[in-house]
């Protein structure tokens, strides 16, 4: 099924939002996880460095 057919499907109003919501939630999960990990790793590394200094 190509994109054009999907968008003109009679159920497109349900299928497209379902995939869009899934994509958004995945983007949030990945971004939040990555940013959280980066934030705490950097803070921990900085404090380790300060302690050794």
């Amino acid at each position, binding site marked *: 099924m190509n994109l054009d057919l999907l968008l003109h499907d009679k159920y497109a109003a349900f299928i497209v939002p*379902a995939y869009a*919501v899934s994509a958004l939630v995945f983007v949030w999960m990945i971004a939040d*996880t990555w940013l959280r990990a980066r934030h705490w*790793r950097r*803070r*921990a590394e900085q404090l380790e460095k300060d302690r050794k200094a």
Partner: protein
Amino acid sequence: MLTALANPHRFMAFSRWAAPLCGAAAVLLIVPGLWLGFAAPEDYQQGTTVRIMFIHVPAAWMAMFSYGCLGGASFFSLVFRHALADAAARAAAPLGAAFTLLALVTGSLWGRPMWGAWWVWDARLTSVLVLFLLFLGYMALRSAIDDETKAARAAAILALVGLINLPVVKFSVDWWNSLHQGESIFRAGGPTIATVFLIPLALMGAGYMFAFGALWMERTRAEVWRRRTLALEVQAAGR
């Protein structure tokens, strides 16, 4: 394996390569899963809404699986006082809530054209809503108590009590008259859906599983770093 990974240093060394590997596996499974899902023919009853199944069913599987992980980690945290188990439990909750929300929303988007209703107070739907509320309750309880040890213990008890909901979700379609269709994949006698739908569904299911694995490990790593930061700040304040 679990005993070896209970050591935070070993877990951090393991997850450093295992998390990206799981992430890559998730992409390698989800991409062909999506491709085959959109290439699959229309279902004779559901029409093209069958494509919602490829994202709805794996999300529902992951909602239950992540609660199982939350419950298991809470058990080890409460009984054996494993700090890493508590970190893993805390890391699983938002992911589980996200997958449960996805299952509810995509299910609702499928239900409107097929059942004629966005929502019905059906046993399956209601028990999944309870699952979502349990995830939210777990997170709210942890945030509400300042003492992290007390918060972890209270939240672990809530998570363990909530485990009773998992068999209710799973068997709700057998125990009560339900509008939701019965089990068609994990059942005695094998799956009842056509191979053309089963293959993309299996790929998506495995992809979601690896995605959860990657994100769970990375969030647990973040939680370990957060605790290390707090410990270092206390040390620095004492000097």
